C-alpha cells in the first residue's frame, strides 16, 4: 500500500512557525508561574483582587491557546466572529448565576 505513493514531497520545517509555537508555550508557562506566585503571595483577605487577577490571566492564556494553537487568530473574520460572539451568552450567564448564588445564600443563612 505505502509503496504506491512514492511521489510525496516532504517540505522542510517552517522555522518561523515552530519558533512562534515555542514562544506561545513560554508565555503560557510564564503566566501559569505568575498565577502560582499570586496564589502564594497575595493573602486570601484580598479575595476579589485575587479572583479578578486570576480571571484576567486565565483569559490571556485562553486567548493564546485559541488564537495561536487553534489558529483561530489567522482564520477569516466571519469564522472568528461565529465562534467568539456566541460566548457572550456565557458572560451573561456568569453574572446571573453568581448573583443567584448570593441570593440563595442570603435566603438560607
Amino acid at each position, binding site marked *: 500500500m505505502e509503496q504506491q*505513493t512514492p511521489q510525496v514531497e516532504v517540505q522542510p520545517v517552517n522555522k518561523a512557525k515552530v519558533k512562534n509555537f515555542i514562544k506561545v508555550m513560554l508565555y503560557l508557562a510564564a503566566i501559569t508561574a505568575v*498565577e502560582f506566585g499570586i*496564589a*502564594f503571595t497575595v493573602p486570601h483577605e484580598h479575595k476579589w483582587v485575587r*479572583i479578578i487577577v*486570576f480571571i484576567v490571566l486565565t483569559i490571556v492564556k485562553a486567548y493564546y491557546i485559541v488564537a495561536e494553537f487553534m489558529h483561530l487568530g489567522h482564520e477569516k473574520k466571519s469564522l472568528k466572529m*461565529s465562534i467568539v460572539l456566541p*460566548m457572550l451568552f456565557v458572560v451573561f450567564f456568569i453574572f446571573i*448565576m*453568581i448573583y443567584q448564588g448570593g441570593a440563595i445564600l442570603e435566603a438560607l443563612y
Partner: protein
Amino acid sequence: MANSAVIVEENKKNIWGGGVSPMKASYGKLMMWFFLLSDAFTFSALLITYGLIRFSHPAYAGSVADFKFSQEYWPIPEKVFEAFPGMHALGIESAPLVFVGLMTFILIISSVTMVLAVEAGERMDRKAVEKWMLWTILGGLTFLGCQAWEWAHFIHGSDMSMNAVGNFLQGAGLSANQYGPPNFAALFFFITGFHGFHVFSGVLINFIIFYQATVGIFEKRGHYEMVEKVGLYWHFVDLVWVFVFTFFYLV
C-alpha cells in the same frame, strides 16, 4: 501532472456541493469548530454551576493559618489539593497545588507537540507526524495517570473531620466528604471527571490518527487535515483545563 491530480481530488472529495468553502475552511474543520463551541457551552455551564453553588455556601471567614475542614463552609482549595506522590517519604508535609501545576504543564506541553504534529502534516512529513503524535498521546496518558492518582488521593482522604450529627468523615464520596459541603466533592468529581473523559477520548482519537498516519492513509489522501481537526479537539481539552485550573484550584 500534479495539478490534474489535485483537480480530480477536489471533484471527488468536495463535500460542499457548490464547490466553494465558506469562511475558507473545509466542511470538517468548520463543523469541528461548531462542535467545540457547543462543548464550550457545556463546560461553561458546569463551571458556572460551581460558581453558583460555591456562592450559595458560606465562605471561610477566619485566617488561612487556622483553617480546618468543616461541613459549615466551602474549603480553601489549596488546603485540599496539597498532596504530591511520595512527598511524605521525602519529609514534606504539604505541597499545595504543586501536583496540579505539574498536570497543567503536562497538558500545555502536549498541546505544543500536537501543534508540531499539525505543522509536520502541512509539509507532508509522515515521520514527524508520527513522532509528535506519539509524544502527544504520551502526554495525554501521563495526564490521565496524574488524574487517577489525584482522584484516588481525594477519595481516600488524609485526616478526618466531623459532620453536623457528629459522625467522623474521611475521604470523599458523592454524598459526603471530609473537606467541606457534600457539593464540593460532587462538583469535583463531575467537572474534573467530565474533563478527564474528554482527555481520554482525545487520547483514543489521537491514537486512531496516529495509526492512520503510520499506514499512509493521509499520504494517499494527499493532505493531513485530519491531524489539524483532531488537533483542534486536543487544544480545546487544554483550554478547558486552563479554566478548571483557575476556578477549581486557584480561586
